[in-house]
């Protein structure tokens, strides 16, 4: 039965709209979560005035940013100055499109829990994040400001350096799966619950560590937030941006955090599979059965966001030479060693 192209288009547009709205809401509440948690880590309350427990704070912040005057500094290179935040946000939002959120569930032959099932999903994500660098690089250059330029240069150098470690850290997972499709990568981890997750049963804990470190650096988060180190660079690459353009960079950063959390969940923590495997018998109707994997997926991503914020609230910033040394002299050799060890182990097991 061939499904009509119009139904396919309609459902796809619907999926894109729903995922984008959920992602942007998640971004807004991740910001709130961060302010709350960092507040508690520093022994203060964080935002608590707007709405119950400060839950309406993201709405107020969004309104504030939206109504602020959009300043265009003199002597900026206007086309790129305007294009840069768009690139940053677009790349951050696009990469979520290949991520599967739950078990395959077809309605009119359209997969409900994934926007696009791409055969090379993992590479698509790596490719889009590598394009996202331009948003930061161009914003810093076009702003015509020394702090912006320094921030952008730092960011470019940092992103290129850590992309290698990031790319190599996932090779072990791909070797184990034999596929670059994200659903295949999850399926192979879904057999025995917690024990068959790549980070435990797949023996990829070293790769997990490398991925985590490289992902912090790729998203410009503490302890690798040198591109926007406020004590030396004012605000780094987005110093000259105000109003919604600033908000775009902000949203891009948090959307990237969420995407990275999703990818880490898929690659190392078994995606939407339950940690208990088949120990808990299936219960509830088909709706519960469809939504339970999504619940596991979201809780794992939440765990990553929590970890992100925890790390930010705990660790001091790296010095720049330490950052480069850590990436090139420690993470990269470790990632290559992990690939060799994984290959040897797989070959030994296959023999």
């Amino acid at each position: 039965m061939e499904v009509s192209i119009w139904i396919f288009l309609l459902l796809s547009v619907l999926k894109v709209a729903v995922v984008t709205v959920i992602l942007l809401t998640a971004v807004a509440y991740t910001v709130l979560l961060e302010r709350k948690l960092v507040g508690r880590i520093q022994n203060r309350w964080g935002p608590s005035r707007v709405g119950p427990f400060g839950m309406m704070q993201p709405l107020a912040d969004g309104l504030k940013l939206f109504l602020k005057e959009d300043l265009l500094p003199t002597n900026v290179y206007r086309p790129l100055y305007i294009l840069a935040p768009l690139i940053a946000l677009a790349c951050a939002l696009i990469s979520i499109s290949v991520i599967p959120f739950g078990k395959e569930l077809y309605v009119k032959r359209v997969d409900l829990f994934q926007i696009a099932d791409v055969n090379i999903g993992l590479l698509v994500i790596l490719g889009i994040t590598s394009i996202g660098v331009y948003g930061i690089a161009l914003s810093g250059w076009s702003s015509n400001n020394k702090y912006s330029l320094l921030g952008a240069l730092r960011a470019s150098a940092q992103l290129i350096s850590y992309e290698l470690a990031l790319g190599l850290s996932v090779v072990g997972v791909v070797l184990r799966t034999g596929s670059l499709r994200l659903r295949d990568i999850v399926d192979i981890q879904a057999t025995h619950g917690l024990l068959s997750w790549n980070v435990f049963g797949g023996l990829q804990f070293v790769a997990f560590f490398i991925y985590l470190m490289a992902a912090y650096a790729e998203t410009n988060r503490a302890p690798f937030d040198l591109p926007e180190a406020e004590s030396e660079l004012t605000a780094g690459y987005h110093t000259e941006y105000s109003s919604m353009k600033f908000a775009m960079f902000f949203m891009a950063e948090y959307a990237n955090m969420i995407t990275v959390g999703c990818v880490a969940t898929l690659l190392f923590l078994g995606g939407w599979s339950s940690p208990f495997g088949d120990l808990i018998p299936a219960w509830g109707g088909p709706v519960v059965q469809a939504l339970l994997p999504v619940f596991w997926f979201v809780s794992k991503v939440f765990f990553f966001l929590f970890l992100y914020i925890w790390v930010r609230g705990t660790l001091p910033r790296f010095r720049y030479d330490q950052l480069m040394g850590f990436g090139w002299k420690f993470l990269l050799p470790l990632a290559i060693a992990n690939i060799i060890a994984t290959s040897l182990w797989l070959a030994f097991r296959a023999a």
Partner: protein
Amino acid sequence: MYLVLFLIFGGLCVAGALNLLLQHHPINSALSLIVVMTSLAVLYLLLGAEFLAAAQVIVYSGAIMVLFTFVIMLLNAGVEERTHGSKAAYIVGFPGAAALLGILVYIFLKQKDHLGGAKLGGYLVTTHDLSSVLFRDLLLPFEVTSVLILVAILGAVALARKEH
């Protein structure tokens, strides 16, 4: 469907390439080159070379062009100065390019029957197929290329080294 995509991205590729030549500012040229590289990746994708497409985006658009823009930003290269260009370029260059185009068109039209056609869309390549091509059938060229790149890196290090 595939043909429409091919036309869109083929056109984008040519437009990017022309823009690369016409722009006066190096950073705009670099950005046009990124457009060219990325549209090429989509064309590879249409021809079924998924991995090549992804590698094109990650390596060329993502890494090499970032280095280009990095250098342009670092040197703060200004708008290029217009010159009249060399006479030789006008006298030899344009007829030469036209002749080359003519020869290529002639050869392709003449050999049309002997050339295989490429099909757009509808391929799937597994990592298994890909690795058996890269690491078994074409192992030697693949490794020799890596050695070539290594030699280039060593050369760059040797040139950049300060004399003591």
